[in-house]
């Protein structure tokens, strides 16, 4: 009897149970086709006398798009689950449904605890209000009572390290301060289940470490459940014990984190093409190009252009470079390079960047952006990929280099002088 009790499993009572979950959206299409029948030709001719010449017939159709297809999984109390997948796999949609922001099309979800979601940094922050006022505003929106916020106020300010700027409007904050403050408020919620969408991407290493540490602390020491979406695989590996890998709206379910990461990595295709991508609301990535096949310690030119669809104020733009296991290698910070931040509809912004002697080891890399405009702040990852080949061998002596996995992340340019003497 006693033996049976000691090997009882936790799995009998999951805190989140998802069964047959699907979510569909209706998307519209305008297809233009040339008219083919005589009747069409005649009606179009008649119409064109009065209109200013749509020479084509525009057909409006709709299509059902399934963002999530038959998802099943269970999460236990105290789990730290990493949800990973490519862009467009359905991760944010899943989180929105779990947070009750949108409803499922089919399926059933059972949640046994209070949920707090951090799907965007600074939700509800109003730029005109001060840091102090926004703490109360944001806290209330996330579900804290004023009494709770007052009690934790000092802790929050301490975590965010913004004490000096508490009474300035947040529109004057740096993006780092903004993120720190937003996370600080959310971190001090006391939900049973904490859901975090990729919000940590900007923020220095110290801050990221702090946030991950807090999430780990909240889970291990307070028994809370954490769901974490990120493209940063090393952060996921550090924090999470289980993972869910989403691909095209489907998933196998919850697995041990290493298995999940392995599944994700092995599905990643290598390509150097780009996607013409809608970056943020009004800015579209028109083109991105890496000139000349780069090799370690060679000069690399990266060119890209942004098309401005509507008047935008571009507050920050940062190019992020990641290696193939999702570690951020370097950034190109354009904030001080963009002199005038207001851009008008119809403009195209051309960037030409030259990196001198790129000091990264050979391998596959990907490029993403962190953008902050007057409308939105976002990270967009995996916009383009490029491959760096091994550094050009020095002609005097050529030795076979050690394997890439032993050589670290950086390629150094160094000079060594060796002399031998008697002591």
């Amino acid at each position, binding site marked *: 009897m006693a033996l049976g009790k000691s090997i009882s499993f936790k799995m009998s009572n999951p805190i989140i149970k998802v069964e047959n979950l699907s979510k569909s959206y209706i998307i519209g299409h305008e297809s233009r086709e040339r008219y083919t029948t005589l009747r069409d030709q005649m009606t179009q001719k008649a119409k064109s006398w009065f209109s200013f010449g749509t020479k084509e017939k525009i057909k409006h159709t709709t299509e059902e798009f399934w963002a999530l297809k038959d998802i099943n999984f269970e999460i236990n109390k105290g789990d730290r689950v990493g949800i990973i997948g490519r862009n467009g796999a359905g991760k944010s949609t899943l989180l929105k449904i779990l947070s009750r*922001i949108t409803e499922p099309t089919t399926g059933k979800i*059972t949640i046994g605890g209070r949920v707090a979601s951090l799907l965007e940094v600074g939700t509800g922050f109003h730029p005109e209000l001060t840091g102090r006022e926004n703490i109360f505003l944001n806290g209330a*929106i996330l579900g804290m009572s004023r009494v709770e916020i007052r009690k934790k106020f000092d802790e929050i300010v301490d975590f965010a390290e913004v004490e000096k700027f508490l009474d300035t409007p947040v529109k004057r904050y740096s993006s780092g301060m903004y993120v720190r403050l937003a996370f600080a408020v959310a971190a001090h919620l006391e939900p049973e289940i904490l859901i975090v969408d990729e919000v940590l991407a900007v923020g220095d290493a110290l801050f990221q470490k702090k946030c991950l540490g807090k999430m780990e602390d909240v889970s291990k020491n307070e028994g809370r459940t954490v769901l974490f979406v990120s493209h940063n695989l090393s952060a996921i590996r550090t924090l999470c014990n289980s993972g869910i890998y989403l691909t095209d709206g489907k998933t196998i379910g919850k697995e041990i984190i290493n298995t999940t990461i392995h599944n994700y990595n092995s599905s990643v295709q290598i390509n150097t093409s780009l996607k013409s991508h809608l970056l943020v609301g009004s800015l579209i990535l028109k083109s991105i190009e890496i000139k000349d096949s780069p090799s370690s310690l060679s000069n690399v030119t990266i060119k890209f252009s942004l098309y401005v669809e509507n008047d935008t104020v571009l507050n920050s733009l940062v190019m992020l470079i990641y290696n193939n296991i999702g570690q951020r290698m370097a950034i190109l910070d354009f904030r001080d390079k963009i002199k005038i931040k207001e851009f008008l509809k119809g403009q195209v912004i051309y960037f030409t960047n030259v990196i001198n002697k790129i000091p990264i080891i050979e391998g596959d890399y990907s490029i993403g952006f962190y953008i902050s405009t007057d409308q939105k702040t976002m990270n967009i990852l995996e916009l383009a990929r490029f491959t760096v080949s091994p550094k050009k061998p020095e002609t005097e002596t050529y030795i076979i280099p050690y394997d890439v996995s032993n050589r670290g992340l950086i390629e150094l340019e160094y000079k060594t002088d060796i002399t031998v003497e008697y002591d």
Partner: protein
Amino acid sequence: MNSETIIITPHTTEKNYWRDLWRFRELFYILSWRDIKVRYKQTVIGATWAVIRPLLTTIVFTVVFNKVAKLEPPTAVPYALMVFVAMLPWQFFSNALSEASNSLVGNANLISKVYFPRMIVPASAVITSLVDLAISFGILVVLLLSYWYFPGWQILFLPLFILLAFIIAFGSGLFITALNVKYRDFRYIIPFIIQFGLYITPVGFSSSIIPGKWKIWYALNPMVGVIDGFRWCILSEPLQVNNLLISIGIAIIVLFIGVRYFRSTEKSFADHI
């Protein structure tokens, strides 16, 4: 599973909704506070707008309808006072309706990222207008003093008429804002309705001049009951109880339709906003 268990399926009307409204009750106040604070940041004249608008409209009405068109109030009360007393609830209603109608779309960033009962958003818009009403009451007191006019015992019923105005504004606001999420036309329809309403509502005139055969149609406008009530409470103008009863009936129907429609479409707001 403990009492906190939530089950999410398509098309559930949540039993937890009213409990959630209670849990998030502070949000009613906080969203209003935010709107008011932001309104007056970096302004010089900010807070005085709440005073200037009803005052200016009263002056214009007095000049045009009383001095030029020679419309006279039914009792011994001065025309300007008669208009101002009606201006108060009318401004409250028109502001509340305008703000509430656009409240969901205006807070799209919240709707798409955070969970809370969505009814709080239009409700806080109406509450913000209540604050403006309170400020206008200050001017009313000044006006009453300057005309040396003191209201009778009927003033005690004033809160009831404020409540009636709130119900009308909130009910119609809920309905319009829910419609506006999917069909953005309503943003353009509302200002027109309010302008039109100003002429069929007894702001610039008194209900007593409406001829008998039109009275029923006229009273279908629920604000008629509110304004007649305000005038009865503050100026002791005779109250037409039939109009009032019709207005109360319409108000309750509007509230019911508003709440029902809002609750039934609430789940899809995040997808359409």
